[in-house]
C-alpha cells in the first residue's frame, strides 16, 4: 500500500503555490494536513503527478478570533481551531463538532480548510460551514475571491474551487448573542465518519425560534439544508411539540437521502428525525 510515484514541491508562498497549480492543473494535488489525501495516495485511489505541499507557507497558519468572528488560514489544524473556539465560546457549533472529527493525532495534522476542500459528504465541517454562513476564501492566478459555503459545495467531493485555486482560509462570522447551537451525529464508533449528522443553530428570543438553520451531513452528495423543517420551526416556541412534529414530518418529506452501501434510506430518515429532536433539546438547554 504505497503511493504511486509523484514529484514533490513545497512552495513557500501562496503565489508560488497558485502558480504551480496553474501550471500543472489536474496533474497536481494540494497536500494540506494529508489526513485524507495520504490514505487516498497509499490506496492508489488517486495518483497525481505532482504534490504541492502547502505546509511551508507560513502565511496560511494565521488564525484570528475577534468581534467579527473566526478566521482560519489553510494550515490551521483541527486541534488548534478546536482549542481556540472552545476558549472563546464552548457552546459554539465548531466547539461541539470538532471533537467528532477523527481522533486527536489526526486532528493535530488535519486542517479545517482541507476538510472543506475535500467536501466529503459525511464530514462534519462542510455542514458546519454551511450552517454558519461561513465564507471560503480562494486564491487563484486572477487573485482572491470569497464564496459562501453554500455556493462552495457542489456535490460529491466536488466544490466550486477551480483546479488552479487554493483554499487559503475560511471566515466564520460571529453570530448574535441570542444564537443557540446544536450538533449531533450518529456514528458506529467514536471518531468515525457519521452515518448521519446534523449541524444547527437557532435565533431564540423569549423562548421563541425566530429563525433557524438545519444542515444535515451524510444525507446527500453535499450538506443538505432542511428548508421545509426550518420553515416549520420558524416562529414556534422552543417547547412547541406540535411544531417539532411538523418539522420532523417536513424532514421526512424533504430529505431525498442517498442510501449508501451500508445504511438504507429508511434508517437514515429515522435518524434524521431523531437528530432533529435532540438538537431542539440542545437549543432548550441553557448555553
Amino acid at each position, binding site marked *: *500500500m*504505497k503511493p504511486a510515484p509523484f514529484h514533490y514541491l513545497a512552495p513557500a508562498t501562496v503565489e508560488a503555490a497558485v502558480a504551480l497549480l496553474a501550471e500543472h492543473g489536474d496533474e497536481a494535488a494540494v497536500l494540506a494536513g494529508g489526513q485524507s489525501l495520504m490514505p487516498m495516495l497509499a*490506496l*492508489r485511489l488517486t495518483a497525481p503527478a505532482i504534490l504541492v505541499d502547502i505546509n511551508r507557507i507560513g502565511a496560511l497558519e494565521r488564525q484570528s478570533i475577534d468581534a467579527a468572528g473566526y478566521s482560519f488560514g489553510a494550515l490551521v489544524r483541527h486541534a488548534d481551531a478546536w482549542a481556540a473556539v472552545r476558549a472563546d465560546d464552548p457552546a459554539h457549533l465548531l466547539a461541539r463538532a470538532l471533537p467528532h472529527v477523527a481522533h486527536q493525532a489526526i486532528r493535530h495534522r488535519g486542517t479545517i480548510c482541507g476538510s472543506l476542500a475535500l467536501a466529503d459528504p459525511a464530514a462534519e465541517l462542510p455542514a458546519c460551514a454551511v450552517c454558519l454562513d461561513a465564507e471560503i476564501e480562494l486564491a487563484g492566478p486572477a487573485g482572491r475571491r470569497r464564496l459562501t459555503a453554500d455556493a462552495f459545495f457542489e456535490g460529491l467531493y466536488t466544490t466550486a474551487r477551480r483546479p488552479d485555486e487554493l483554499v487559503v482560509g475560511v471566515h466564520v462570522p460571529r453570530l448574535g448573542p441570542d444564537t443557540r447551537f446544536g450538533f449531533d451525529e450518529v456514528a*458506529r*464508533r*467514536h*471518531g468515525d465518519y457519521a452515518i448521519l449528522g446534523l449541524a444547527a443553530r437557532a435565533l431564540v428570543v423569549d423562548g421563541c425560534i425566530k429563525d433557524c438553520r438545519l444542515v444535515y451531513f451524510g444525507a446527500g452528495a453535499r450538506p443538505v439544508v432542511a428548508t421545509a423543517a426550518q420553515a416549520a420551526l420558524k416562529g414556534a416556541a422552543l417547547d412547541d411539540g406540535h411544531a417539532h412534529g411538523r418539522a420532523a414530518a417536513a424532514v421526512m418529506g424533504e430529505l431525498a437521502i442517498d442510501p449508501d452501501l451500508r445504511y438504507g434510506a429508511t434508517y437514515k430518515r429515522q*435518524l434524521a428525525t431523531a437528530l432533529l429532536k435532540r438538537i431542539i433539546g440542545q437549543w432548550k438547554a441553557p448555553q
Partner: protein
Amino acid sequence: MPDRLLGSTEAQIGASRPRARSRALLAGRGRYLDDINLPRQVHAAFLRSPVPAAVIDRLEVSAAARSPGVVAVLTWADLAPVCQAWRTLSAAFPGLAAPEQTPLANGRVTSVGEPIALVLAASRALAEDAVAAIELDWRERPAVGVATAALAADAPLVHPELGSNLAWRFAAETGDVAAAFASAATVVEERFVFSRHTGVTLEPRGILAAFEPSEGRLEVWASHQMPHQLQLHLGELLELAMSQVRVTASDVGGGFGVKMHVYPDEVAVCAAARLLGRPVKFVADRLESLMSDIHAREHVIEARLAVDAEGRLLAIDAKGVQGIGSHSVFPRSSTVETLMAMRTLGAPYGLAAARAQADVVFQNKAMTGQYRSVGHPIACAVTERLVDMAARARGEDPLAMRRRNYLEPGDGRCRTALGLEVFDLSHVACLDRLEALMGLPALRQSVAARRQAGEVLGLGFAAFVEMTATGSEVYGMAGVPVAAADTIQLAVEPDGSLKASASLSELGQGTDEGLVQVLADAVGVAPERIGLEMGRTASGPHGGGAWASRGAAIGGEAAWHAGRKLRGQILAAAAALLQTPAAALDLVAGCIVDAQRHERITLAALARTVHFAGHEFPQGTLPQLQVAHHYRREADIAIPTNGIQAALVQLCPETGLVRCLQHWVVHDCGRIINPLLAGEQVRGGVVQGIGAALFEHCRYDAQANFLDGSLADYLVPMAMEMPDIAVGHVETLYRGSTLGAKGAGEAGTCAASAAVLNAVNDALAAVGGGRLAEIPLTPPLVLAALNDRSNAG
C-alpha cells in the same frame, strides 16, 4: 498436590507475574517480522484477483518486468518447477472435496484477492508500481456469494471439475429426536445468521525467506503461530528435507488463528526465494490481509429446542449451511469449524436427543479457517439463545432454566448429546460465582428502576463449554500432520542458570512466562534464572505451537515433567559429588540443601564442576544436566473447560446503537498458572466476541465482490465502545495431568457474542420489540426490531 511448592507462598505457579518480554516491547525494542532485514533482500507485491471468479486468458508480465527496480515477475508457470500444488485432505472429514490449490493462480481465479502474479523489486513501492503494469485479460465467470444459494441446481460452480459446491456434509444424531419434539411441552425455534468476520491481527501476516543454494537450505522468518508446522509443509511443497528448512517466528503481533495456516502467497514467496537465490520479504498490507487472511464463521442455522413441562431440556435439532470460501484451508481444513460448531451445540446441558446437520459449501470468497474459539461461538449463540427463548416462553428466569439443566458429571464423565466427552466441570459453581460477582439481585433491581425511567436495558447470559488442548487423536487419526504434543528441552548452563527451549509459540498470550513459572517450581530455581527460547525450528524441538488453548495444559505439563527430570539429574549429580543419598537432598531456589534445609552446594557450583571439573566426580559417574521431555496426553481427546458470561447492554431507541455497559465472565480453566495473564486472555477474547456481535463483518455483495477493503470499512472494536469486564475464576483441576491446567485462551471469545445477543433480545423484549438472531447486530437491524410491534401484547 504433586509437589510441596504448589500453592505455597514460594510458588511461581499461581503467581501473577507480568511477562518478562513486555519490558522490551514497551520500549519499542520488539523484533517483529518487518523489523528483520537481510542483505540483498527484495520485496514482494502480488497482483491479486480483482474479481470473484474468472478464467485468465492472458497474463503478460514483460512490461512489468521492465519497470524500475524489478528483479522478477513470477507466475505459476515459473514457480511450478520448484513447488508442488496441494489439496486439503483429511480423513476426519470423509468425502471432503479437495480441489487443487496453487500458490499463484493456475489459469483461473476463484475469489477476490487470490494471488495471480508475484513481483519482486527493490522496494515494496517499486513492486507495487510494477504490479500496476502487469497486463491481465480475463473472462469473468458467474460467482457464488450467498452460502444458502450455493447448492441450488442452477448455482454456478466454484470448481466446475467437482460437479458441486458441496465441500462436505456433517450429520450426527443421538436419541429419538422426533419423539422428543413430539412430547415437548415447549418448542422454540429460530433462524440464525452469522456473518463472516476475521482476526485482524494488528501486525499483518508476513514472511521473509532466503535460500542458500550451496546447502539447499531454506531459512524463513515468519509472523506465524506454528513455525514447526510451516517448516514441515514448506519442506513438502518445495521438496526439501525438514532439516533443510528453518523457520523462525520472533515477536508475533497477534495470531488468533489467522497465522496458523499455509497461505498461497507465503508459499509463493518461499518458492521465489528458492528460484532467485536471494531473500524475499513479503508483508501483507491491510488491504491484502482483510481480503486474504482467513475469514471465519459464516453460518446460517435453523435450530429448535424441545423442553418438557418441568422445564427440562429434551432435545436440540439444528440444520445449517456454512460458507467456507473458495478452498478448504490447508492443512487443517475449514471444516474443523463446522465440526466444532455442530458438536458443541447444547454442550452445557443434559439432553436426551440431538440432531445436527450442516452443509459446508464452497463460495467465491476468501478461505475461512480456525479463528479463536473455533466454531464454539456459533454453537454457543444458538444454544444459549434457544435456552433464553425457552425460559421466556415458560415465563421463568433464564438462570433457573440453566441451573436445572446443566450437565455436571461430578467425579465421573459423560458424553454430551452430540458426542463430546466432558468431565471436571463446574457449571453450578461458576453460576454461583457469577451471581456474586454481578451482585445480581441488586443489579436486577437497578435495571428494573432504570427501565422504569425509560432506558432500554438488557441483561443477557451465556453458559459455555470450550474444548481445549486438543489431543493427538484428532489430527492423527485424520492423517493430517499436526503436532498435538509438545516438547521442552532444558539444560543447566555452567553458571547454574537454565537454558530452555520449547516447541510452543508466543504471540503475546504469555505462554512464555507461564512455562518459566512452571519450570522454576519444577526444578527449584528462580524464574529469572531461566532463559526460554520459542519459535525456532532450528534449535527448538518439534511440536504444536499456539492453537487450541494448549500453552498451559500441554506446554505446562511438558515443562513440569522436563523440570522434574532435570531436577532429578541435578540431585543425582549433587549426590554423587557430595557422596550423599539423593533422597536426602532437595533443590530450593538454586541451592542444593539437605533435609535440615542447610545449603550443601549451589546449583551454580555444581554446574561449574560438571562442565569444567568433571574429574572431581567419582569414577563412573557422568552427570547429565540436560533433558528433554515430550508430553502427549494419553487420555482425553480434548479437555473441556466451562464457564458463563453476562452482558449488560443499553439500546438507543432512536438510533438502534447498542452500548455495552458491562460484561462479566466466570471461567474454569483448571489450575491457573498466572492469574494476571489468564484474566487478560479472557478480556481480550471477550472484546473479540463483542466485536463479532456488534461490529465486525467481512461484507461481500451477492456476486461475491468484497466490500470491506480497508480498516475504515471493517469495523473493529475500539476502546470507547468497549465495556469493563469483570473476570472471576473457579479452579476445578483437570485430573488427567499433574498440574491440572486446562485451556484459557479462547473462552472469552466463546460466549461473548452469545451473551450480547441475549442481552439485546432481553432489552427488546422489555419494550415489546421483535427478536434478533443475526450478528453483527447493526443499528438498522436493532432499530427495526425496536420498532417491530408484532410480538407485543
